[in-house]
């Protein structure tokens, strides 16, 4: 698959930068775009923009166009030979959709620019990530670090800011589907715990603490089920408020390979 270098961008209101855009979007543009997206696009693309296999609009990367103008045209004319139909939207409406798509990761789930504050110093945050915070003990970034915990290489592009704070301070509050841990006990009495990669009616697939990909037949298990709490410890009592802000300041810079 050809990887097209697109624009990956998260609106960071407090940092006041919209540098990667062709246009400056107002919060009203983005809100308008959100409404049009929900009524027109979400049926196929899903609420989170990832409803069509292989396409995740929330990442701001588009296969068939990079500029706003190109994406507006695709929305209006559709893509012949695919399931993407033409849409009878004005330039303003389609432009608002693009504004929303560019900011989707940040805006969705109710986050709005006014909550995007408290982001600290990225360099200090990186030092905390690799040192005192002990984040790098479990998490992997840009090819370095262990694989059991979620890879954070793109966390700044895929998570709204409030979710980053929440994940650090209250990690049990919202465990995303791909980050759930699973525990299985075999009929031989061996216990296997790992991050659940997949499950079906007859089997489960995990990555375990030794980074082994393990597939288990349920028929061979004595008991199995999800681990309710996250293995991630809260940093609430470990880091100061400023240190948490700095850590988040680093995480929002992690947007994957350009």
């Amino acid at each position, binding site marked *: 698959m050809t990887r097209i270098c697109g624009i990956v961008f998260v609106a960071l209101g407090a940092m006041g930068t919209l540098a990667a855009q062709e246009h400056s979007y107002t919060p009203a543009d983005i809100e308008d775009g959100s409404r049009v997206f*929900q*009524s027109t696009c979400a049926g196929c693309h899903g609420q989170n923009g990832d409803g069509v296999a292989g396409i995740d609009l929330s990442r701001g990367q588009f296969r068939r166009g990079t500029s706003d103008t190109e994406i507006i045209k695709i929305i209006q004319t559709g893509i012949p030979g695919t*399931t993407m139909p033409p849409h*009878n939207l004005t330039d303003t409406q389609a432009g608002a959709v693009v504004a929303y798509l560019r900011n989707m990761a940040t805006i969705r789930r109710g986050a709005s620019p006014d909550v995007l504050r408290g982001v600290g110093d990225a360099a200090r945050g990186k030092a905390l990530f690799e040192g005192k915070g002990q984040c790098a003990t479990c998490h992997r970034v840009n090819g370095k670090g262990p694989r059991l915990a979620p890879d954070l290489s793109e966390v700044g592009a895929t998570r709204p800011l409030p979710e980053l704070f929440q994940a650090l301070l209250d990690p049990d509050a919202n465990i995303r589907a791909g980050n*759930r841990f699973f525990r299985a006990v075999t009929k031989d009495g061996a216990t296997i715990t790992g991050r659940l990669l997949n499950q079906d*009616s007859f089997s489960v697939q995990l990555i375990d603490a030794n980074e082994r990909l393990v597939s288990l037949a349920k028929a061979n298990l004595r008991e199995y089920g999800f681990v309710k709490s996250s293995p991630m410890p809260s940093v609430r009592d470990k880091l100061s408020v400023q240190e948490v802000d700095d850590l988040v300041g680093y995480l929002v810079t992690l947007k994957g390979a350009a």
Partner: protein
Amino acid sequence: MIHAAASFRGPARRSIARALYALTLVLIASGSGVIQAQVTFERLLRADQEPQNWLTYSGNLSGQRYSPLTQITPGNVKNLELQWVFQSRRPAEPAEKFEATPLVVDGIMYTVLAPNHVVALDAATGRMFWLFSPRISQLARVCCGRVNRGLAILGDTLFMGTIDGHLIAIDAKTGRPIWDVAVAKPESGYSFTLAPLIVKDKVIVGPSGGEYGIRGFIAAFDAATGKEAWRFNTIPGPGEPGHETWTDKEATAWKTGGGPAWVTGTYDPALNLVYWGTGNPGPDWNGDPRPGDNLYTDSVLAINPDTGALKWHYQFTPHDEFDYDSTQVPVLADITWQGRPTKVMLWANRNGLWYVLDRTTGDFLSGKPFTKVNWMDGFDEKGRPKRVINPTTEGSLVYPNNQGATNWYPPSFSPRTGLFYIPTWADTYSTYTKGPAEYKEGNQYVGRFPTMAFPALATGPGSINQRLPEEGYGAIQAFDPQTGQRKWEFKMADVTDSGVLSTASDLVFAGGREGYFFALDARTGEQLWKANVGGQVAAGPMSYSVNGKQYVAIAAGSALFVYALR
């Protein structure tokens, strides 16, 4: 639109026809051939007398998806093995799910590859006789996948509806089009995804397009000419009965009122009635522009197939705001109801309830939830549900979710076990948030999409499931219509878009999104056999035999898999 049977023109076609003729002679000479006769309507009426064939979408006109074949049994089903696979000729587009149920007529299988490629195959080997690929208009738009669920046959003619609103008659021997009628405008959101239904000399279809503000209909066409014989508007216009259930002041909502009819109906020859389900009103998730019950959306209609006249109707979900299409196969069964032999209709609805209706009168006999339901709380004496939840601007949590507790996936009824088998999305929910809806021709006219834990469409390669059990699961459930009791449930970790087949040897076949195809004991639900088909099952299984060997076929991913005993 131009339709062409590519590669089958002129001399090439004649030489292939000669080759087929020679091949037929060789087969008959070798003793492995099958007598091939025209498919009269009498044969469709008596499909149970030729269990080797599968002549209609549901196997019989009662919609039971029940095979009288008995070679494969609970005792030997573990010995099923793959006989052949037919791959789509090219990788399917993400939304081109393989939803078709094949027909089998005297050793020849006919099926449709998404979106509208028709093939004729040797049912014993999977080798292809011909391919017909009509050119589909770029104006075609479908809400939920470029799909087709199958064909109908009468005489030597196959019938297919297309996603750009055409109905095409195709020569079953050659794959060449006989006639092609543009029935409805694709640019307005009309499409055909269902298998047509043959009743007497007519071909009956209904459109998809409930998300585009269409005005739905059920229409019959002369099988010989394609000429429209009658049309019943599922959204009645001024002066027509039912129009009074559209009460907006502007008196315009009916024009974009939806009511598609995108799943094949059934037929009772003794009553001479066709039964057909209708879909959601438009806009889907904001009912404010269309006050009233919105007949005949989310209803079953009993129609005289000779005239198109409505005999009776029952509306499952009045003034629907949850997209609870009643586009399911009406399953006709003759059972004992409260001590008396009764002609009933069994209906597992997207709204989470399964119903028993008197199919002679349309009377409501019973309605019970088959999964968690919170949008209604019981029925009044006439069988009208008591609605307790509406969408709000803040969001309303509703069970079942927007895809429904079931959907178009065909259920099954076994006259032997007396059980009704329902493919189920269990305990799923959506948050419905009322949003603005503005009609523009060809655009989606819906309100605001609800949220769901499950993707509405499972497309593309593989399937990853990391959901918690309380976020919902899939199941095949068996209910006894006489008692209303659930007999068993076979749970799956993921939901299922599979239909169900039951057989006269008390087996039930089904699959799911996980990519398994399996056999269950029809009386207990015990799993007896499974195969990994490597892609989601989003089609109804069927069974047939050739030269005394029973086969079971299922479409999964972008391929058709056929099994028989080793």
